[in-house]
């Protein structure tokens, strides 16, 4: 293979109107043997616009990481497809190899993600050399990126992962993800293991890098404060499905789906004079093996009615802006007594 000086940057093909990523009915089931199946991701549709940060929230096991792994094509989907800047991922004009360069991921565990036997400079340079960049050019680029993430190469380039703090290791992982010149970066609980004071530094860094490199983020986190701070839009998942998606302020200020409402009111109040008096949901998150029929939230939903156990609600536009929710209460004529009347809706 001819050695390139640096990896070419990828131009915007579809234009600003085309989402960077469109996921269409993505589905991933894990057979467990004995006929049981974990429906980890079950027909998920969403788009990520160019330059935005899409936050993803939901209880443990709802399918956030599995969605991320499918989007990264670390595991193949069972059903559904993805368009990246308008082109089919894995199709003729966008091969998997080329796609994998343009989409990168940062995980929670900063230690496990790094090869303990490589210096951090070599770790960052590794990806580009695999993609045909010469070693000296890759090292040069690695040092530039280490500087960008706030690690002075003179002090840090030759260190090994165990010689760094958690926050520093996470900076290395971010530099490594950027080394291939991606357009999409998926951050799966990427700041969750960091201390609050260090987390704030890394969030500032992520904002700077997004600006400088024109990046698009998918930001998965269980910390609803952090998601509110960093996201433009937020997607709420429940048992392998999207239940609500929309602009961050609209969704936080006026959640439409009863699950989104419950999730948000489970956040600690931060006000000693108004402490939480009642837990919004009882019990643990249910298990995605044999999820309930109809609306998957119906066994825990305070508004569940007969229709909810029978008919699966689909994501539909609701409210003023660009919000969608999957709840019978939002759809005229659904058969739920709280749904808008048909004539009003017309």
């Amino acid at each position, binding site marked *: 293979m001819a050695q390139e000086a640096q990896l070419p940057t990828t131009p915007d093909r579809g234009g600003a109107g085309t989402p960077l990523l469109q996921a269409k009915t993505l589905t991933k089931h894990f057979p467990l043997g004995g006929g049981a199946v974990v429906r980890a991701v079950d027909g998920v549709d969403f788009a990520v616009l160019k330059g935005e940060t899409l936050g993803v929230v939901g*209880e*443990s096991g709802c399918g956030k990481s599995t969605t991320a792994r499918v989007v990264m094509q670390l595991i193949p989907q069972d059903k559904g497809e993805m368009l990246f800047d308008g082109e089919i991922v894995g199709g003729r004009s966008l091969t998997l190899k080329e796609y994998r360069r343009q989409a990168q991921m940062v995980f929670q565990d900063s230690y496990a993600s790094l090869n303990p036997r490589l210096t951090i400079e070599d770790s960052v340079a590794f990806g580009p050399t695999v993609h045909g960049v010469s070693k000296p050019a890759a090292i040069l680029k690695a040092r530039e990126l280490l500087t960008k993430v706030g690690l002075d190469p003179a002090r840090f380039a030759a260190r090994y992962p165990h010689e760094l*703090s958690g*926050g*520093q290791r996470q900076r290395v992982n971010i530099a490594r993800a950027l080394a291939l010149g991606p357009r999409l970066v998926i951050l799966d609980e990427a700041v969750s293991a960091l*201390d*609050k*004071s*260090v*987390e*704030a*530094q890394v*969030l*500032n860094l992520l*904002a700077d890098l997004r600006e400088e490199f024109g990046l698009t983020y998918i930001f998965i986190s*269980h910390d*609803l*404060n*952090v998601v*509110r*701070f*960093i*996201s433009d839009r937020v997607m709420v998942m429940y048992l392998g499905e999207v239940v609500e998606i929309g602009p*961050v*302020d609209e969704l936080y200020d006026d959640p439409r789906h009863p699950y989104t409402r*419950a*999730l948000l009111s*489970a*956040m*600690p*109040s*931060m*006000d*000693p*004079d108004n*402490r*939480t*008096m*009642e*837990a*919004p*949901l*009882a*019990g*643990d*998150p249910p298990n995605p093996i044999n999820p309930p029929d109809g609306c998957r939230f119906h066994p825990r939903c305070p508004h569940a009615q007969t229709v909810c156990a029978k008919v699966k609600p689909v994501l539909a536009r609701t409210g003023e802006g660009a919000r969608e929710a999957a709840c019978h209460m939002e759809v005229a004529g659904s058969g739920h007594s709280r749904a808008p009347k048909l004539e009003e809706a017309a």
Partner: protein
Amino acid sequence: MTAPLVRMENVTVRFRGAQVVHAVNGVSLTLEAGQVLGILGESGSGKSVTLKTLLRLLPESRTDIGGAVEVDGRDVLALNPQELADYRGAVTSMIFQDPALALDPVYTVGEQIAEAIVRHEKVSQKVAMARALELLELVRIPSPARRLKAYPHEMSGGMRQRAMIALALAARPKLLLADEPTTALDATVQIQILLLLRQLQRDMGMGMLFVTHDIGVAVEVSDRLAVMYAGQIVETGTVRELLRDPQHPYTRGLLAANLHGAKKGERLEAIPGAPPALNSAPDSCSFAPRCKHAQERCRATLPPVVELGEGRVVRCILAESALAAA
């Protein structure tokens, strides 16, 4: 005046080994019976070591403990093995982030709770089992009679956490030590466990030391807060005082980093750098390398311990001027 339930006076904990670690560097705190003190700090700040000192759970051969530790009138550091066995569980009990530290995988939940009861009280196995059932009801485990016969791995995460709480309460302790018991849980389950702990603590009149790195969690359960940094308590006060009028620069930084009410697109006022290594005992302000108010004096000597009011203590030179101005 009655003595407080817990009194720690200038406690130091040092681990000997290939590298010496000065994990706790002069902690003083008191807890009244029936009160909840939240201990807030980042990882490595000495929260768990402080709790373990109260139960004497640290490896004795490698650990030097200084200062005074009193719980319910006992000199904890002077207890002999028999006294220690009587003390653990019956006076002071502990719950953890990971229930595996408390629950034995090879015994049923019922067997373990009953065993803890029999260890401290002369009751029959049958009476103990009946009490175990009551405890599972108390912590609101669904189908408690069935769960009595379940092994820990047969329960969901939230349920295991409840079972561990039931086990900790088996011998009706006066002091409950909680070491990040909700950190690994989903927000929806976390709030359930916090409300449960708050209610049990109140109903049983227990004192509780609740360790967490999450301010929101601390606010939900605590009457008073202590903020720890590098093995020292840098600020204490009521929850209201700390939230509305934080004095120590580190407390202020932590509050900002919590992002509660932070505006999108705004830059966060992040504390630069990282906590110090603890290889020597502090001889200056441990926060000085990260503090934007640091002065010569901060780097030359230990900061003053300024008492702004009853139970309102700040370890920082800035508090001196706050005191002078008041």
